[in-house]
């Protein structure tokens, strides 16, 4: 029977990136995916004729440009379009509009607070400085701080140098940053509530933390460290939906001779002695390979498709205790027309970018309280985007769809398992909230896809529906991701690797985890590196 050089379990965008780089280096690579479609959480599907949703992730900023360029993803059909403008609503419908032009943005801030309008300059400069530092680590393997190998020492020195270039005062600030709450961080700059909440919301996206919880300020940074064509903090849409990213990577992979098998869920990773030798599929097929790479999250990899007895002691417990709490829902809504939101000028540039129903800091905190008690938020934070207002390929002309990301929604409810009825209630809660800011919204609805963490786990296999494949808290970041001692993509058994968002640099559509893992695998297989280094605008 044929033995592959590498098998990648899961055709998420990171699995595909990993596969592409291994194939580019000349290896014989197979990707096996349980679903009949590829992409994992970077996926676009037509669930209602004429409408294509980005079913999970919906906007793009973390994607490593060096990878886009190196794999020539544009030629494979990928185009990332930045979108402009966003509107933040408080509980009673007051708005804060993020205009694209600096002058208009400034005047809008000033309308709310003269102090904050001026303070925004310092805020942006500080945030950019932190973001620049973090960005440099994304396409690099974290060093092992306990090792004395040359590579690790070299990497530690690189980091130290980047760090010291900040200046002494900033270093203290920076370290504090990882433990602060989003609100604590923002208090240093702003006085106006609406301005604070408009920034704080980035600190809770996808995480089981509240705006007042320590650690949420890093999450905020995680959402502004990306860029679109060098504009740090900007977000873009993939033409054709987020699945276009996965499709382009898959196409690049196939152009290097790679093979993808869908409907091919892995039941078990095959282990002989202390070595991984292949996979057994759910249909009973066994496939062998020199290395096996898991695109699944750490918890799933070690507790579901591996046997506890095959693992060295300790790992199983680490995986079991890996923090991977589901906290987000996604409601995709097909609309018969462009919705008209209250209290915004009819300005084509601002009312179709992001719609942020943040309410107030208190509202967001109460939304979190619901989650803690095992309920979905009755007044959730909704981040809406209308991709069809920018992308002509995802809805019929004149028709639209709205992507709504919801915080919070638990994976497990206090009152028993998720049912269809409860899911519909969740969807209704979201629609009701949107309709508060958009009279007539309900009449426009053509179709809806409501996804709680339960659906996200069922379909994509993200444990508990955690969007990042594991919380982005300091204990699970950088050389601690997924577990201390295992941050270099090699897992405790020989020939086994991980390449999903459970590894550094974590969640988001970045391709970085997959590419970093490929670099390590190629070292072990003694192949020349095929993974590019990151290039920066902000060198």
């Amino acid at each position, binding site marked *: 029977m044929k033995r592959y050089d590498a098998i990648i379990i899961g055709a998420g965008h990171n699995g595909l990136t990993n596969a592409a780089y291994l194939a580019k280096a000349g290896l014989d690579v197979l990707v096996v995916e349980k679903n009949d479609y590829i992409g994992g959480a970077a996926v676009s599907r037509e669930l209602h004729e004429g409408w294509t949703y980005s079913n999970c992730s919906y906007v793009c900023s973390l994607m490593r440009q060096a990878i886009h360029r190196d794999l020539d993803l544009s030629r494979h059909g990928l*185009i*990332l379009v*930045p979108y402009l403008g966003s509107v933040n609503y408080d509980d009673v419908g007051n708005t804060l509009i993020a205009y*694209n032009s600096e002058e208009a943005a400034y005047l809008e801030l000033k309308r709310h607070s003269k102090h904050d309008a001026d303070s925004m300059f310092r805020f942006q400069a500080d945030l950019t400085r932190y973001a620049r530092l973090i960005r440099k680590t994304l396409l690099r393997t974290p060093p092992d701080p306990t090792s004395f190998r040359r590579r690790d020492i070299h990497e530690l020195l690189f980091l130290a140098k980047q760090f010291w270039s900040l200046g002494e005062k900033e270093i203290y600030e920076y370290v504090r940053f990882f433990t602060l709450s989003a609100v604590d961080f923002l208090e240093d700059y702003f006085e106006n509530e609406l301005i604070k909440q408009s920034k704080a919301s980035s600190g809770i996206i996808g995480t089981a933390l509240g705006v007042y919880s320590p650690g949420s300020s890093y999450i905020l940074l995680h959402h502004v460290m990306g860029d679109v064509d*060098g504009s740090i903090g900007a977000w873009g849409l993939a033409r054709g939906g987020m699945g276009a990213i996965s499709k382009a990577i898959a196409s690049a992979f196939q152009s290097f001779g790679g093979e993808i098998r869908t409907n091919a869920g892995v039941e078990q990773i095959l282990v002989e002695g202390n070595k991984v030798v292949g996979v057994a599929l759910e249909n009973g097929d066994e496939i062998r390979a020199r290395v096996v790479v898991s695109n699944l999250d750490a918890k799933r990899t070690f507790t579901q498709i591996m046997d506890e007895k095959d693992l060295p002691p300790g790992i199983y417990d680490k995986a079991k205790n890996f923090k991977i709490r589901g906290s987000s829902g996604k409601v995709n809504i097909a609309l018969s027309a462009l919705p008209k939101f209250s209290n915004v000028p009819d300005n084509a*540039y601002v009312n179709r970018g992001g719609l942020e129903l943040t309410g107030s800091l208190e509202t967001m905190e109460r939304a979190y309280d619901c989650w803690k008690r095992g309920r979905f938020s009755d007044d959730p934070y909704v981040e809406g985007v209308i991709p069809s207002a*920018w*992308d*002509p390929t995802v809805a019929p002309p004149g028709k639209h769809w709205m992507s709504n990301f919801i915080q919070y929604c638990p994976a497990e409810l206090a009152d028993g398992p998720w049912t269809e009825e409860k899911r519909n209630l969740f969807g209704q809660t979201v629609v009701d909230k949107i309709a508060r800011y958009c009279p007539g919204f309900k009449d426009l609805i053509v179709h809806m896809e409501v996804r709680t963490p339960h659906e996200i786990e069922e379909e994509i296999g993200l444990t508990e529906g955690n969007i990042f494949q594991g919380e982005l808290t300091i204990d699970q970041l950088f050389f601690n991701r997924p577990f201390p001692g295992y941050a270099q993509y090699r897992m405790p058994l020989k020939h086994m690797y991980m390449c999903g968002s459970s590894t550094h640099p974590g969640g988001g559509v970045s391709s970085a985890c997959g590419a970093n893992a490929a670099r390590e695998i190629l070292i072990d297989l003694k192949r020349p590196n095929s993974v590019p280094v990151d290039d920066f605008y902000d060198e």
Partner: protein
Amino acid sequence: MSDYDFSSERPKPSHFQQRQDELNIHDAWSSWNGYKFAEYFYDVEFEYFCVRNTCGTYDICPMQKYHITGADAEKMLDRMVTRDVTKIRTNRASYVVWCNDEGRLIDDGTIFKLGDDHFILNCGSPCSAWLDKSAFGFHDITIDDKTDDVAAMALQGPTSCAVLKSMGLENIESAKPFSINFFDFQNARLMVSRTGFTGDLGYELWIDHNLAIPLWDAVYKAGHDLGIHPYGDQATNMLRLEAGFIMPGYEFNEALKTVHFEHDQTPFELNLGWLVDFKKPHFNGRRALFDEKKRGPRYTLTKLDIEGNKPAEGSFLYSNKRCTEEIGYVTSGMWSPAAKANIALAMIETKYLEGEIWSEIYYEKELRQYSKVARCTIKHEPFWSPARTRATPAADF
């Protein structure tokens, strides 16, 4: 109120000015051939992306439009430009360049053939004097400058065909690249050519200037749900560079305006040798170009993909990393958002094309000047050239 009268100094309004004024919300104007002309309307990158993702319109009223008619029209044009004009079929457009006797490029443009004795020459700079000179010796010929009488706009981008379809232009999707088609518009004749300067699917629309605003409104009504937006000079410059098209003032210095010896260019230097047809009878610059072809051009315009992402605008090029031997210069350079590459057009001494090419790039960071040396790779295809640009029938997006 002052008593001054500046009217003779102000740029004159385009036929579409009324509508463009409403949409140019930052008042970012410059001028082209005396017409008021948008640098951009809302945001350069946004407009650029409209053309790559949905569609955009570009005001080409200031472009020069000469109607050349009469039994000698074809012969005259054939003697003037380097391409074989007799091969152009009726209702087809053709990209052409014309040169002085030394074979140096005067300008480029398009010739539209509307009939055996009816042609239109469209070009960026006024060239009445040169046309008159070129018509010397021909008798049955009339040259009519219609620039001010015609309103014209480019409609470019993947949804451009869908916009025209929804305007009711029947069968427009089957119009081939470089075809010219006619439609009735409010009882007047609307000419639509499948041409453009963006390297994407696109058209140019031409109509009597009295119908400029109705045409604009019809196009914008049809485009409302198809992402239509005007774009200005800056986005055009990005789009044409991705498509690998040359621009006066960047890649070439118009020969008739050139002071310094050989600071103008030849078609061979501009990598436009395919436009020079030695099989046809005599044309302007033929002898010089023939000699140059034999000899090989001193410089060759080259497409470069440059490592890193600092645009190489204004860079010198070298044959080695230490930058000891200069071999050329960058004419246009930018980061391409669609191709995700650091692209440039560059004039490089032909004999160095086989070797390494390094670019010394200058850039500024918070008031401090920096430079870096980056490796360049030659590209033979346009940086942006999706299949939809050439596909017939044209797609809806």
